[in-house]
């Protein structure tokens, strides 16, 4: 059977179980879009900016575990995807981006809307393809989806010249992927697993640090079994949040720059770190030379290139987190670690994070907590990047697997709103709250039109502090309170929402918080709440840049200790 290139793309997507595409068309992708009506199984969601398409595909992929797909035309459409692709790359999210390209005879001639998108995305994709022959499309689509979702997941891009979309070729869909050069190791090496079990069985003060790899592998029950069998405290990275129930007695929160003091103390004091599906990012380890100074380190990760990259590792195990944990659990002896667990509980009592100042001010932490109460901790929370992201991570308790979606590696402001669209489209029965900052929100605010046109019932809480707050906090602490370029004015978000066509409320006082959230939850469609929070509230705890995890600041009182002199500030980014 002969099909056009465009039909073959659609056939492939349907065969691979793709149901949703986020995108914007243009000349170079018109043939593909023209074919979409022949495939009603493929729901297309028109976004307002291609960055939104990539983030929505990313949010969809994180929420569902399936590959998120986005389309963009050649040139500016393709370059607009770049931030979203980089975001998916750094957080290991399976995203398939399909871009239009100028017709083959025009490639390399600086034709209208031509960019070398495979060249541009080379370092931020797991793999990419420029398809020069329609007959290759079935194989390319099959491979691309396979590469995106297997091993360490990541974004894959297919660049399709316009004339290749029109070209006809015989359609043969391959039954299997044949990629001899790509064979991810799933099962851990038995000898390594044995060594790891020995370390675990001998440890007096072990700690698990679990990352997004646990979520990707679906290894929730395996992780729980390990923790419970040997009574090992579980700490997560930012992206590991919700891989282990936070109300569990063995859950000790998140580590890192804005992690819980007791989590950072535990890592500092531990004699064994069991790192699972995490990559020792500098935001998590703080000063790497002082990381877990007394501990042996077991590192379980599917990507061999992560082993030994940032910290010394005693027992590396390359493999899928769930598969390795399953094997490991067979060898781990029941244990109690009574003293160690008690020590952590004492630290938790002495250094509580969860107490929110009792004040009439409208505190962001309080808002997050009330969203938690109203949703009974059952919602999927999607965030922007900044202080609000940290408050959302700290003050909502994530008990259900995979309910926290946030941009970790790239720290992309503007991720929240489009990613929440993706999450809600992927999980229509879930309550999805986007907790955004006034700055982040305005980076992709145009996607409000998408939620209206596509009837996506996301609830939006803007923690509106009139600042690029996280940067202002650094200026306050390390740059002598010189608030250069951080004060931020915004339009009236309530009127904005209404202008886009859905209801919204402004909250200025603490007492309005609960009724407003209630109102948002009762509304069947989208709803926005503009929370006018305390403008200069800071995120604590904080490990100042360049300091060790043990040097955590728990509040403004101890701030004097922090490096006041910006010149002494180590190399670190916001």
């Amino acid at each position, binding site marked *: 059977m002969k099909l056009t290139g465009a039909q073959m793309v659609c056939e492939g997507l349907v065969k691979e179980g793709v149901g949703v595409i986020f995108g914007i068309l243009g000349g170079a992708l018109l043939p593909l879009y023209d074919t979409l009506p022949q495939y009603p199984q493929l729901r297309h969601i028109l976004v307002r900016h291609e960055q939104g398409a990539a983030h929505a595909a990313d949010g969809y992929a994180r929420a569902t575990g399936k590959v998120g797909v986005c389309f963009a035309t050649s040139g500016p459409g393709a370059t607009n995807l770049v931030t979203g692709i980089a975001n998916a790359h750094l957080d290991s999210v399976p995203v398939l981006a399909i871009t239009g390209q100028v017709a083959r005879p025009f490639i390399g001639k600086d034709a209208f809307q031509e960019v070398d998108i*495979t*060249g541009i995305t*080379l*370092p931020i994709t*797991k*793999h990419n393809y*420029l398809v020069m022959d329609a007959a290759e499309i079935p194989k390319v689509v099959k491979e691309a989806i396979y*590469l995106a979702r297997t091993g360490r997941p990541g974004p894959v891009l297919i660049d399709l010249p316009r004339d290749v979309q029109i070209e006809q070729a015989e359609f043969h869909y391959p039954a299997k992927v044949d*990629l*001899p*050069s*790509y064979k991810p*190791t799933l099962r*851990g*090496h038995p*000898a*390594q697993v044995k060594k790891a079990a020995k370390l675990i069985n001998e440890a007096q003060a072990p700690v698990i640090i679990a990352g997004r790899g646990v979520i990707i592998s679906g290894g929730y029950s395996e992780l729980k079994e390990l923790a419970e069998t040997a009574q090992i405290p579980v700490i997560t990275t930012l992206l590991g949040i919700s891989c282990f129930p936070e109300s569990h007695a063995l859950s000790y929160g998140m580590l890192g720059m804005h992690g819980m003091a007791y989590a950072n103390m535990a890592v500092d004091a531990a004699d064994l770190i069991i790192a699972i599906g995490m990559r020792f990012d500098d935001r998590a380890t703080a000063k790497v030379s002082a990381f877990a100074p007394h501990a042996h380190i077991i590192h379980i990760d599917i*990507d*061999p*290139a992560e*082993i*030994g*990259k940032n910290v010394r590792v005693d027992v*590396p*195990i*390359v*493999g899928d987190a769930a598969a390795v944990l399953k094997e490991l659990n067979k060898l781990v002896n029941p244990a109690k670690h009574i003293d160690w667990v008690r020590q952590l509980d004492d630290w938790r009592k002495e250094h509580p994070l969860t107490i929110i100042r009792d004040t009439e001010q409208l505190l962001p932490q309080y808002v997050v907590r009330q969203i938690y109460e109203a949703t009974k901790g059952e919602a999927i929370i999607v965030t922007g990047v900044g202080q609000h992201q940290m408050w959302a991570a700290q003050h909502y308790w994530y008990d259900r697997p995979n309910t926290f979606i946030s941009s970790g590696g790239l720290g992309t402001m503007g991720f929240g709103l489009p990613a929440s669209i993706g999450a809600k489209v992927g999980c229509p029965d879930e309550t999805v709250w986007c907790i955004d900052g006034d700055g982040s929100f305005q980076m992709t605010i145009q996607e409000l039109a998408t939620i209206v046109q596509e009837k996506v019932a996301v609830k939006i809480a803007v923690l509106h502090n009139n600042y690029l707050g996280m940067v202002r906090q650094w200026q306050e602490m390390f740059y002598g309170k010189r608030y250069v370029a951080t004060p931020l004015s915004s339009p009236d978000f309530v009127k904005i929402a209404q202008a886009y066509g859905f209801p919204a409320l402004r909250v200025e006082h603490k007492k309005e918080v609960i009724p407003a959230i209630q109102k948002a939850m009762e509304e069947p469609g989208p709803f926005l709440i503009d929370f006018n929070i305390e403008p200069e509230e800071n995120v604590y705890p904080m490990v100042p840049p360049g300091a060790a995890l043990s040097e955590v600041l728990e509040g403004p009182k101890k701030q004097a200790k922090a490096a006041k002199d910006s010149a002494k500030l180590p190399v670190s980014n916001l």
Partner: protein
Amino acid sequence: MTKHTIVALVADKPGVLNHMASLFRRRGFNIESIAVGHSEVPHRSRMTIVVDGANTMVEQVRKQLDKVVDVVKVFDITGDAMIARELALIKVTATSTTRSEIIEIVDIFRANIVDVASDSVTIEVTGDENKINSLLKLLRGFGIKEIAKTGRIAMARGAARASPVEKKATKAKGKKTS
């Protein structure tokens, strides 16, 4: 800093060389030489890359190279016994008085004269870097007009195997997980 010789078996496709080079560039490595040609496997090229770098950094890049989907196998043979060769073409000023002296040197080095003009000769030499550098040193006095060199190509020593690379790489895979 050590000079590393990295050998890779890669898919014979556009973009692969670019991808490999960019992984070095990103970390500020200067590639000293790179040589690519067909291998014994159809549609696969073998690449020899020479870089200067700290061992841990090079190992990190090697692992990153290994992740590139179009890279079949890659290993660092620096510590292994290996055969390494380069080819150089050297155009030297030669007058009737100096020509015989040049020919003598060329013979000692088992190099070849591949072109003769009224005022120059062109010499072809293969060997390891030391040999080529020694020859260049001796020829410098005559006046070198032009040099073209290939990068290093290299292979681990050992009995010929059906596919030495595959064998070597399985070993490397085992190492990775252990």
